[in-house]
């Protein structure tokens, strides 16, 4: 804190500036050598060098040598966007034995050479480097924030993703608590029969998982429990849990949280494809239940005691909905995504029926067959062999279900079949099965407690679908399974494995290091107004505490570094300028602005 008290902190005059050609990406538009000549003359710059690729080994070695020889003690690299190589150069500085936070980055590719040309580009590159250099002169060595982390993970949701995450984390020796809101583990697997495409029984897979769980003493399971509140931060979360049966409250202290809250099946609205109006219209989940319970084998499938001579399976119900065509839900939302699992599940059920009850005919009415995964296309081929008749409808002409004029059939399905040259056909049926899609379980309460992002499709949203697929922007909170997107059991287990590895890697050392770009209070200057506490966006990150100085009680602001977002809202409102952000100090900004507005550099 003493460091903060002096605005007069001496500025260094040993900044090293390293300007990258990016193999022509920058140098085709920016006169890199001219920039170097100007930068070299800037006050405080000890060396200015160029390189074809600064991120290459020779480029990094150049920086390391200059640091080691003592020529420089601050580093500015002017190259691509910091998202690409900021870490590269901070690591290089670490390898030279210096503090990685004496580094500043100037983006002269995305912000200059890709959008400007000629002198304009060269001048703007110079200005950006001048401002980065001005900031670099005031940079101080910083230490990462070290937070003690409880070697314990809590998994919310006891479906297949939650169970698999629990097992994989428990294997690494970390304690696991699994919280399930219903009375049993297994989630949607409890409602499935034979899983596509392998044909394994869902109950067998579930049983194998449950047998494994028993072997781990470090897994605690709470069923019938609701989470009332989540507080704390990475390594030190606290969950307030209440049991549904006797309203008993208890706490769980945990280092990391995995959301495995799963999904539900779409419920058709009253009258959608005759659902709710005709008892012969059922959803795929019901059909799977019927097949699971059915012990008889005859030539014809029987449903509710009635023989099914012919049935229609309609794909994409509650999935791939189109604005203006499909009816939105009460909240105005449409499920515009593909639920991915229904095509294979429908074909799987069709094959089971055709192979066990050859007297039952099947028409599958689809928009597109999306058998995307390994072994799934074979299901489609098998269904064709089994003489399942495929008919294709377009979204603007949905099949219609009406009572049949034939005495032998209760219903008929009218379809404009694009495989029969858009001719309209009436198919008489005993049964209509709707392939209802996947919707995320409503976890908006939990999500708002933990500030977790929700996508426009209402599923929980990861940081990046490819680079960080099982992480939330809230450090220490992960996600797995169908709370994120429609997945089959195999994909949910893949995601669970990934989330387990991320959680274990985070907690295994027992402490976590966070970036030091957080607010810091100058105790001497702080008058305890509390304006910063009011402005603070993150609950618990800033508070006023009473402290005794020379026998008198004073109020002073205190930062909980692990919670601070580093947004700077506090620094903006403090009348005493007694609070500032490490690595992004006000004085540093002022110097950057001075450098930008001073004509001297860019000429």
């Amino acid at each position, binding site marked *: 804190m003493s460091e903060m008290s002096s605005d007069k902190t001496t500025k260094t005059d040993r900044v090293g500036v390293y300007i990258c050609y990016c193999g022509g990406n920058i140098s085709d538009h920016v006169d890199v050598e001219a920039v170097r000549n100007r930068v070299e003359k800037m006050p405080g710059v000890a060396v200015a060098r160029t390189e074809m690729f600064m991120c290459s080994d020779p480029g990094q070695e150049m920086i390391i040598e200059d640091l080691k020889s003592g020529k420089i003690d601050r580093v500015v690299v002017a190259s691509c966007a910091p998202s690409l190589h900021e870490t590269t150069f901070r690591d290089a500085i670490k390898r030279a034995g210096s503090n990685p936070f004496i580094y500043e980055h100037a983006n002269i590719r995305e912000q200059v050479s890709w959008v400007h040309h000629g002198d304009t580009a060269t001048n703007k590159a110079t200005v950006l480097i001048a401002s980065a250099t001005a900031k670099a002169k005031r940079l101080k060595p910083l230490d990462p924030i070290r937070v003690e982390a409880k070697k314990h993970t809590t998994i919310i949701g006891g479906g297949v993703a939650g169970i698999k995450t629990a097992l994989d984390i428990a294997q690494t020796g970390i304690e696991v608590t699994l919280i399930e809101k219903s009375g049993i583990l297994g989630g949607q697997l409890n409602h499935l029969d034979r899983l596509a495409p392998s044909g394994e029984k869902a109950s067998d897979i579930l049983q194998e998982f449950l047998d494994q769980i028993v072997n781990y003493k470090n897994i605690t399971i709470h069923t019938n429990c609701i989470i009332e509140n989540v507080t704390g931060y990475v390594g030190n979360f606290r969950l307030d849990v209440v049991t549904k049966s006797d309203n008993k409250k208890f706490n769980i202290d945990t280092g990391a949280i995995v959301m495995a809250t799963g999904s539900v099946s779409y419920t058709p609205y009253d009258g959608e494809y005759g659902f709710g109006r005709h008892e012969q219209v059922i959803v795929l989940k019901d059909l799977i239940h019927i097949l699971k319970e059915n012990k008889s084998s005859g030539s014809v499938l029987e449903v509710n005691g009635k023989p099914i001579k012919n049935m229609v399976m309609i794909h994409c119900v509650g999935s791939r909905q189109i604005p203006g065509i499909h009816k939105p839900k009460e909240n105005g939302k449409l499920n515009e995504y593909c639920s991915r699992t229904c095509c294979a599940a429908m074909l799987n059920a069709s094959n089971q029926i055709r192979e066990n009850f050859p007297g039952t005919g099947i028409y599958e009415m689809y928009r597109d067959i999306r058998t995307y995964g390994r072994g799934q296309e074979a299901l489609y081929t098998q269904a064709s062999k089994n003489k399942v008749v495929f008919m294709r409808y377009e979204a603007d002409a949905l099949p219609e279900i009406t009572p049949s004029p*034939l005495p032998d059939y209760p219903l008929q399905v009218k379809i404009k079949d694009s495989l*029969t040259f858009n001719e309209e056909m009436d198919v008489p049926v005993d049964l209509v099965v709707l392939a209802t899609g996947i919707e995320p379980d409503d976890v908006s309460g939990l999500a708002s407690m933990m500030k977790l992002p929700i996508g426009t499709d209402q599923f929980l949203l990861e940081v990046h679908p490819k680079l960080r697929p099982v992480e939330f922007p809230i450090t220490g909170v992960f996600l797995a399974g169908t709370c994120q997107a429609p997945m089959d059991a195999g994909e949910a287990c893949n995601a669970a494995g990934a989330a387990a590895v991320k959680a274990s890697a985070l907690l295994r050392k027992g402490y976590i290091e966070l970036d030091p770009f957080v607010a810091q209070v100058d105790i001497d200057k702080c008058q305890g107004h509390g304006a910063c506490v009011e402005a603070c966006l993150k609950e618990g990150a800033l508070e006023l505490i009473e402290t005794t100085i020379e026998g008198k009680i004073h109020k002073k602001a205190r930062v909980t570094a692990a919670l601070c977002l580093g947004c700077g809202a506090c620094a903006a409102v403090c009348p005493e300028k007694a609070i500032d952000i490490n690595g992004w100090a006000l004085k540093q900004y002022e110097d950057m602005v001075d450098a930008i507005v001073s004509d001297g550099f860019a000429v």
Partner: protein
Amino acid sequence: MSLVTLDFAEELKEYCGDNAFECFNCGTCAAICPLVHDNFPRRMIRYIQVGARQKILENSDELWRCLHCGLCTQTCPREADPGEIILGLKRFVVANWRKS
């Protein structure tokens, strides 16, 4: 519009084999056919698949344009033997002509 006849495939077995279900609607037969346009013989085979019995009777004159050159059978990637199917359909139509 046409009402699908569910047991049509069964009825047709008397007149031709059930190769029609090998067809995956690629259209090669219709492309190679030198005589008749408008998706012949592809459309007829599709009618068998879905059970559009009435449609076949309604459009039966198409069947007699076929010269049985055999190009469709030679080129069919699924060995559905379209030429033989057309012959079978002729037998079916003759047997059912103006019955109703």
